[in-house]
């Protein structure tokens, strides 16, 4: 991993299978999540992470390994990525991983990445900037910290990799601008959607991928400590879930075919009643 000289760039890309969140709702009567019929997709941000890894491999050589933690059906997501041209797919799947929060998740993933690192070089760990179901963005930085890799989040553009110097230079998107960072390899990156355009997998590649193996690893395969996994290993607890606080539907001020000027006048009257006043009424 901390190789003296590099001649290629190998990456582990962390991907998550997520429900299409636009279709997830809370049952107002029972308060439970309605997940029935909600399709699973690959977290869209993670596809940009895969693309970034593939571009680097095509330029520098090396291997791209996709790593996912989830139930057995997450294999389907990894198989799709094999069709995109990744070299290796690993699924971490074990009931003991279930219920993990981000701290336990990064522990499990870091165990798997350390195992991969015994088999092949790992120069980069690449994640999407966040998942669309959890939206936390915590796994990438957490992994960087656990692995002791340089931490580069919200990367919006990869500038260059200097193999000889063992550094990566990349642009990071901040609220107030963009910064060019130079990081020692190995590094852990989280990638924004503006970083690249996702390639389309050719149908023959997708078909060929259906024969490629997805390696499935359990807790013992990665040598993880069960006490640090799942609910036991997760400091956070979900106390309750509920439907988002809804604002009440208010008053419709217009009438069909009515004069817009009347609606505008009525609106200004109503704002005045709410203490949102025109200066003239100010005492």
């Amino acid at each position, binding site marked *: 991993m*901390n190789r003296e000289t590099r001649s290629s760039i190998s990456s582990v890309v*962390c991907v*998550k299978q997520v429900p299409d969140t*636009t279709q*997830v709702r*809370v*049952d107002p009567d029972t*308060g439970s*999540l309605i997940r029935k019929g909600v399709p699973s997709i690959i977290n869209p941000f993670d596809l940009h992470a895969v693309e970034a890894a593939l571009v680097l491999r095509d330029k520098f050589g090396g291997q791209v390994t996709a790593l996912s933690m989830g139930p057995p059906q997450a294999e389907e997501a990894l198989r799709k990525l094999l069709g995109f041209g990744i070299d290796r797919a690993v699924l971490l799947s074990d009931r003991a991983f279930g219920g*993990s*929060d981000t*701290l336990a998740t990064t522990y499990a993933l870091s165990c798997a990445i350390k195992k991969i690192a015994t088999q092949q070089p790992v120069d980069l760990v690449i994640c999407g900037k966040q998942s669309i*179901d*959890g*939206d*936390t*963005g915590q796994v990438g*930085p957490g992994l960087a910290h*656990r692995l002791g890799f*340089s*931490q*580069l989040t919200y990367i919006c553009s990869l500038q260059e990799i200097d193999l000889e110097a063992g550094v990566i*230079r990349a642009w*990071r998107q901040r609220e107030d601008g963009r*910064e060019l*960072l130079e990081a020692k390899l190995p590094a852990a990156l989280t990638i924004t959607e503006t970083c690249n355009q996702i390639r389309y997998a050719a149908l023959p590649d997708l078909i060929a991928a259906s024969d490629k193996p997805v390696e499935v690893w359990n807790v013992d395969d990665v040598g993880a400590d069960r006490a640090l996994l799942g609910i036991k*290993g*997760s*400091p*956070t*607890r*979900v*106390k309750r*879930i*509920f*439907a*988002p*606080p*809804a604002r*009440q*539907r*208010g*008053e*419709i001020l*217009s009438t*069909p075919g009515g004069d*817009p*000027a009347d*609606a*505008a006048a009525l609106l*200004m009257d109503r*704002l005045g009643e*709410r*203490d*949102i*006043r*025109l*200066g*003239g009424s*100010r005492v």
Partner: protein
Amino acid sequence: MSDNVRSETDDSPKKAAAKKGRRGRGATKPGDIWVVVENEGGTAGRVSWELLGKAAGLAADLGSRPAVVILGEDDERLAREAFSYGARVAYIASHPSLTPFTADPHCRALSQLARKYKPEAILLGATTRGRDLASAVATDLKTGLTADCTSLEIDEETGLLKQTRPAFGGNIMATIISPDTRPQMATVRPGVFPLPEIIESAEGEIVSTKPRLGDDLPVRQLEFIPNPSDAVSLQGAKAVIAGGRGMKKAGNFALLEELAAELDGTVAASRGAVDAGWISHQRQVGQTGQTVRPVLYIAVGISGAIQHVAGMQESDIVIAINNDPDAPIFDVADFGIVGDLFETIPALIAEIRKRKTAGGAALDFTAGEPSVLKKAGKGAGKAPTEDAENTPDETPRDALGGGE
């Protein structure tokens, strides 16, 4: 495996907590509530003071103190500013490696402070910087972290920090606790909490520390290109006039600018308008944009997808203008006008001008500070849909507290 990979000698969170001894619960005095100041060259990000206002309330409920952490240079001026916003203590960690911000030295400095002074909770802005730092520190301290909280409360019975956040793109809300580990960590987006009042004469205690950091940083900043100067912050705007796909083209946003000028407001947009390329991403309100809480929010030609509503539902008064009577935006609007926006907006501008001529002054938002308005009766509409209990086991918690 090279020695570059940190060895995993962690204890489980529970064991770690047991070792440290359980705090809170009245057995021992609860620790302070910390806010990490977004320190950009001696200027604090507004979100820091928003969080400090919240921290003061939490500390009062808990019987502890609100405190700030200033990482960077030894800057007492920033500490004094923090006192005026309600901090009682300012921990300053100064080291050349902390400027400009990179995650690793900030993580080490904050972790060292937390291990030494044992805060009850640490709050950070859910910004690119705050999220970066919080995740690393929570991993280092093996403690719970909840991202993007929209509500923070102290549980009366247990003294635990109840952290409520949206998940699944805003389709559900989850309340998260970290019962066994300290500090309890949370990030909060800018604009979620109001700015506290300034008390100029307020004083506090300054604790100056020198973190143990090397000079050999894993990440270095080579260059910074600030956003163009016409970039706007929607935070703090009293009136936000947002346009959506109904605006039809970029040029039509001039109409909203005209209305904004009359209301002394700021123009914003939905994701639809941003994706269409009509307006900059920096003006986007919603799940993947900014969260705003103005006195007046006018949604023009916006359908009102839940991802958009998530970014503006804390506004005091919402006005929706849309030609589709079934648009969901009307479900969250105090006042709706069903009609052609290209007729309605000019009519509204004309009406405001007419009243200004009659009355003399601009729309007065100072009378409508959020707290005043809520007491005036609006708040009733925002009662959460009580009280859908659910057990964690039924919940895919990776998507609630965890996940990527």
